[in-house]
């Protein structure tokens, strides 16, 4: 509110000072067809802006339009009267005529209307000015349209053009220009066919424009009044033509640039109006108009509409040197360069990261596979070592039935020779042979299992008690050889576990052999090795404990005994317990050592499984 009051005061003050120091300059702007008729409307608009900008005096601007240009049959008299009535009391400082009809009007009625008022003629082509009729009170700022250059431009950017359609109206000024165009176009008639629309109504023109052959181009010269006598605002007419025609449209007027014309050399409205305003200011300042001579303003540097170039597939290489291209629609790249760059960079980084992760993943899988293979191999080697240690016991076990078989067989051979042979006895012998043979086979199968490499396919559901019994069978001869009392105390509860039974057998054999080794140096007292199993229903675990009657393990070593290469034996590998731990952990169990009654006990527990459930482990 305060600021508005302040602003009003300032405006008022400025108005008062302006009033006090200089009278406003009264300027009449005379339009040819109307205030809003292109292209003159554009001259007028830019002229007004330029005049206000350049003049230090306030301008009191009057505008009037020459109706007779639109309606050729109209009498000029009433309009002359109107102007006279308007400006007898208010003396004019300057008359500015825009467009040749207005220029002609001022020249004709100068004496009766504004005998002493200086006049500026602009918005007019030099050919429309009768220089001979100029007085010292007149200044002309004209343009010079080089129509040949327009056709040259069409043929330069679209060399395959065969037809040029000239759109022009039928008012006196348009008839004049049609004639000028014919003269200018004559040199091109061998190369292109010119079709003239000047005798058509605009509706007719649109109809024909819709069905133009390929390789045609429209030259939109001027459309003020069509052959049917209908006045048109050229800008709107061009819009309708553009909407309907499927051929490129050219014009020399910069007014239409951006409204659908392809472009080329264009007359420069801004240069013209700037010049006209400058001359007007000088005249208002007191200079004699007749002394101010300006050369007609020609085309400015060629200018093209990028959108039209794209539409008609005109390569920018075809454009004359020094051309400007406007209305460029930036591509995604130009418009969002940084975003696109960042996006691409992110994508690239992601791709790199993904490939790297994939690479790492496959490397990891290979490494895991390799580690798994190694582990399996070490585990197997441990079994081989164990088997080696057990070999004399195994040999004993195997040779026993083989010896019996051989003796029995040879006894039977002798019996068969006697007469009559004791068949009942021989039958008995054969029965014994079969039994011993099976015994030997079992040992061999057990040994083969122990030495074979194992795979995940060997995972089974089984009762841990059975494994303990199996171990007892394998180790018993060895225990006997070492004079160790081996006993197994198995729970009557089932201990269903899921793993490779040979692996668990290996673990228990390792623990049993360790226990027996631990008692090697014990002289006093009975040497006992006890294997116990029990079910811990609460934790869902099967527990196995292997206890010896040795000297026990120093407390600080209870954990480190499971470390690789920890060994107290001169010929030990130090791998038995780590391997046992690896196996147990693989199947989801834990293994530990403790001292009970000053002797060592090794325990492990494994999860009890429902035979239907699946839990996969690999060694």
């Amino acid at each position, binding site marked *: 509110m305060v600021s508005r009051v302040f602003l009003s005061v300032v405006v008022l003050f400025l108005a008062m000072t302006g009033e006090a120091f200089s009278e406003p300059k009264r300027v009449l702007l005379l339009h040819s067809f109307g205030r809003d008729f292109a292209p003159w409307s554009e001259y007028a608009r830019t002229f007004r802006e330029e005049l206000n900008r350049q003049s230090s005096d306030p301008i009191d601007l009057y505008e009037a339009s020459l109706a007779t240009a639109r309606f050729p049959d109209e009498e000029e008299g009433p309009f002359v009267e109107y102007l006279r009535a308007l400006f007898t009391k208010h003396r004019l400082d300057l008359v500015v005529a825009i467009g040749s009809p207005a220029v002609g009007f001022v020249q004709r009625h100068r004496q009766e209307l504004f005998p002493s008022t200086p006049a500026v003629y602009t918005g007019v082509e030099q050919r429309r000015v009768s220089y001979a009729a100029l007085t010292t009170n007149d200044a002309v700022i004209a343009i010079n349209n080089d129509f040949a250059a327009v056709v040259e431009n069409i043929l330069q950017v679209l060399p395959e053009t065969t037809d040029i359609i000239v759109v022009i109206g039928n008012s006196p000024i348009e008839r004049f220009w049609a004639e000028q165009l014919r003269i200018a176009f004559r040199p091109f008639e061998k190369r292109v066919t010119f079709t003239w629309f000047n005798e058509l109504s605009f509706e007719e023109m649109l109809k024909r424009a819709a069905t133009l052959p390929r390789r045609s181009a429209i030259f939109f010269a001027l459309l003020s009044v069509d052959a049917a006598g209908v006045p048109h605002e050229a800008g709107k007419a061009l819009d309708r033509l553009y909407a309907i025609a499927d051929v490129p449209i050219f014009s020399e007027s910069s007014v239409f640039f951006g409204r659908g014309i392809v472009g080329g050399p264009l007359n420069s409205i801004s240069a013209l109006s700037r010049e006209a305003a400058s001359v007007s200011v000088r005249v208002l300042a007191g200079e004699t108009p007749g002394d101010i001579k300006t050369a007609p303003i020609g085309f400015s540097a060629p200018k093209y509409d990028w959108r039209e170039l794209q539409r008609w597939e005109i390569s920018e290489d075809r454009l004359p040197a020094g051309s400007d291209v406007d209305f460029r629609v930036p591509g995604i790249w130009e418009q969002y360069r940084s975003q696109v760059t960042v996006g691409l960079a992110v994508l690239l980084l992601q791709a790199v990261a993904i490939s790297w992760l994939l690479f790492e993943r496959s490397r990891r899988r290979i490494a895991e596979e390799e580690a798994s293979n190694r582990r399996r191999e070490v585990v197997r080697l441990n079994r081989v070592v164990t088997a080696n240690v057990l070999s*004399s*016991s195994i*040999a*004993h*076990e*195997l*040779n*026993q*039935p*083989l*010896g*019996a*078989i*051989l*003796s*029995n067989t*040879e*006894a*039977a051979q*002798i*019996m068969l020779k006697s007469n009559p042979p004791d068949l009942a*006895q021989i039958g008995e*012998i054969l029965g*014994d042979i079969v*039994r*011993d043979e099976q*015994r030997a086979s079992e040992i061999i199968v057990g040994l083969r299992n122990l030495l074979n490499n194992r795979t995940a396919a060997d995972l089974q559901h089984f009762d841990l008690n059975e494994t303990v019994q199996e171990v007892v069978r394998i180790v018993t001869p060895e225990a*006997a*050889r070492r004079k160790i009392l081996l006993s197994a105390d198995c729970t009557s509860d089932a201990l269903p576990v899921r793993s490779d039974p040979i692996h668990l057998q290996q673990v228990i054999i390792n623990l049993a052999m360790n226990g027996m080794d631990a008692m090697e140096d014990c002289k006093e007292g009975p040497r006992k090795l006890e294997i116990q199993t029990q079910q811990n229903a609460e934790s869902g675990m099967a527990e196995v404990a292997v206890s010896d009657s040795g000297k026990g393990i120093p407390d600080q070593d209870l954990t480190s005994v499971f470390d690789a290469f920890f060994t107290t034996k001169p010929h030990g590998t130090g791998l038995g317990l780590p391997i046992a731990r690896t196996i147990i952990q693989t199947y989801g169990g834990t293994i530990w050592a403790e001292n009970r009654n000053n002797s060592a006990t090794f325990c492990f527990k494994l999860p009890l499984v429902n035979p239907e459930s699946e839990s996969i482990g690999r060694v």
Partner: protein
Amino acid sequence: MRTIAVVEDDPSMLQGLFRLLSAHGFRVLRFSSAESFIDSVDQCEAACLVVDIHLGGISGIDLKRRLTYSGSDFPVIFMTAVDNEATRQEAIDAGCVAYLRKPFLANLLIEAIDRVV
């Protein structure tokens, strides 16, 4: 009839040897341990002792040593299912007619027995 004593803790092997030697016309005394043989050594009329080295209690070699120590000079044939250099040397040192690795062919045993009986 020649009498042979067999000390063997493996029942199957013991049975086989019994049949084999019987088929060859020997009278066979069977013992499943060194201890049981020692118990009846005074009444034993055996001309030869076939003994397994790896017995549950007193080993075959210890049995031979004990016999030697008590002044008995039973000819002894050792059998073993576990063959290694140390055992073989030990057996030879203890004194034996033959050292047989199980499984062995009957004629090896018979030849050894024939040498002493």
